[in-house]
């Protein structure tokens, strides 16, 4: 099922309590079609948000919509069209992977024969070979993650909610999982919400980003825009006068790293400052620029900045 929405879901002023603890505080956001990273530290409210979108938690005095439906009113219809991959290691006991995935298909409303053939297709898609005929109880973490993803795909959902899909995976397993997610989102047209605290996973797979901290949305929008807002980085090499150049750039409001014995300056431009500042400063001081390369602002830097701002604000 390929979704025909640009905006696949939104929530407005959503609060969620666990007893006295407020897990989500006035969350308002829009989920765009494509791959969205739901980023936040442990306890930020990511899993709570996913459970709310699935209709597993009650919604009070807030407007939540997913795929044109209200999860609080029609939770079963929402779950029929959404694939959810939980974070925890969960499985149906005493069943092989193919039985497990087929049973998930049946629980989503597929006939037994459809579910069985789709289970094989889904397990092919996640590259689980002969091991699919073994009981899941004895699987490695990586294999279980793949089975969970196959179970999530079996009924052909238009939207996948993946909760920490790379959690507990070794580098090779993680690489494979990210490849699968990228393939599903970019080549197969599925919309994905990827909840994680691993920045690199988001950087490699997602076009959209929601940053959560302590139950609040700190950012919601395009990932590249988020990274650009943190400023960009330049590597500057001058023929002579490295130290003078560094001082002048600092005076112009840039952050400059000077490494002893290294003629290359690492310059971080503030948001809104153009790279032409380097030429302007060099011309004014009569210095000759030998090399000027730039790189996009990193997600790490942008995330660190927004978290710091949130911490200062709090």
């Amino acid at each position, binding site marked *: 099922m390929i979704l025909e929405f640009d905006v696949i879901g939104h929530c407005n002023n959503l609060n969620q309590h666990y007893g006295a603890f407020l897990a989500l505080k006035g969350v308002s956001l829009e989920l765009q079609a494509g791959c969205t990273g739901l980023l936040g530290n442990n306890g930020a409210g990511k899993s709570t948000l996913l459970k709310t979108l699935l209709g*597993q938690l009650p919604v009070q005095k807030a407007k939540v919509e997913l795929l044109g439906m209200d999860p609080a009113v029609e939770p*079963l219809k929402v779950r*029929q069209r959404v694939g959810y991959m939980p974070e925890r290691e*969960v499985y149906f006991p005493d069943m092989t992977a193919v039985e497990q995935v087929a049973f998930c298909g049946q*629980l*989503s*409303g597929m*006939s037994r024969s459809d579910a069985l053939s789709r289970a094989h297709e889904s397990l092919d898609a996640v590259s689980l070979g002969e091991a699919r005929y073994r009981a899941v109880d004895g699987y490695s973490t990586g294999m279980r993650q793949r089975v969970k993803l196959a*179970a999530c795909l079996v009924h052909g959902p238009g939207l996948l909610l993946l909760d920490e899909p790379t959690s507990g995976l070794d580098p090779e397993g993680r690489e494979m999982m990210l490849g699968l997610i990228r393939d*599903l989102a970019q080549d197969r047209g599925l919309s994905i919400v990827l909840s994680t605290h691993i920045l690199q996973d988001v950087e490699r797979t997602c076009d959209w980003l929601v940053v959560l901290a302590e139950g609040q949305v700190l950012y919601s929008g395009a990932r590249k825009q988020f990274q650009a807002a943190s400023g960009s980085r330049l590597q500057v090499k001058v023929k002579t006068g490295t130290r003078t150049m560094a001082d002048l750039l600092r005076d112009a409001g840039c952050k400059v790293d000077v490494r002893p014995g290294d003629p290359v300056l690492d310059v971080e431009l503030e948001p809104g400052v153009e790279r032409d500042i380097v030429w302007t400063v060099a011309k004014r001081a009569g210095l000759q620029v030998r090399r000027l390369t730039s790189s996009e602002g990193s997600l790490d830097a942008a995330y660190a900045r927004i978290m710091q701002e949130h911490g200062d604000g709090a």
Partner: protein
Amino acid sequence: MNPDTARIHDQGYRPFKGKLGSVRTRFWPIAVNELRLSFRNKWFKRLLWASFFPLGVFSVLVLLRHVMESMLGPSQVWQNFWRTQLLFAVVAAYFTGRRAVGEDLRSGALTLYFSRAVDFRQYLLGKWLAVALSMGGVLLGPGLLLLVFSAAMDPDLPLSVALSWGAILIALSLLFALSAGWVVLAISSLAGRGRAAGIVWVVVYFASSAAAVALSSALNTPDLVSLGIGDGSMRLANELFSQHADLATCMLSLAGQVAWAILGALVVLLRLARWRRL
């Protein structure tokens, strides 16, 4: 096709173009799956076969009814048949009920159930139905065959009597599946590990009878024996299959069976409280 020009087929993910069924019948795959898993156990299959052995013995008794009528009338045949089949039903519940809820709690499978289009009622109905079908299989299967055999061997048997025996069999099976089924689900939800739950179930079944007997002796009220899970069903069967059923005993036995069902259901609801809203 020339192998040099053969197309490479994409084996990646493909969208599902079929139809998804109604969300109101999700209890059925849950029940069937539970039964399928139980059938993997060779002892469960042997139990099902063995539950038909008493049918042979009681068929012989039906054949010899004229010789033995003074010792064993049709009522006694049915009463003893029910008493025997109940033991098979208890063991059937051991196999299907022991893993029902507890294993789901232990493995986190509830998260998988409720992330699908399955609600709490469908889940519980599916789990109970699996236990009920297995118990119904060993109670009703041989019972209905014995009824057909009795009717075939006795042309004088009035149709109304044969039908009433059939109705009693169905009602007793349903009632026992309700009470025992919910009790075994409750034990499973508390015990966690399947085997432990099964053993506790068998202990509770016999202990409830012992406790009811002790209570009836202490209070000098023989009818209180009906409060045991098995004894209640047996006494109800005795009354219903006899020529002159005592209404008070029937009502007390019925109340005992319903009380066990309610108690079991309450325990399950309390144990799964956090999932109940789904």
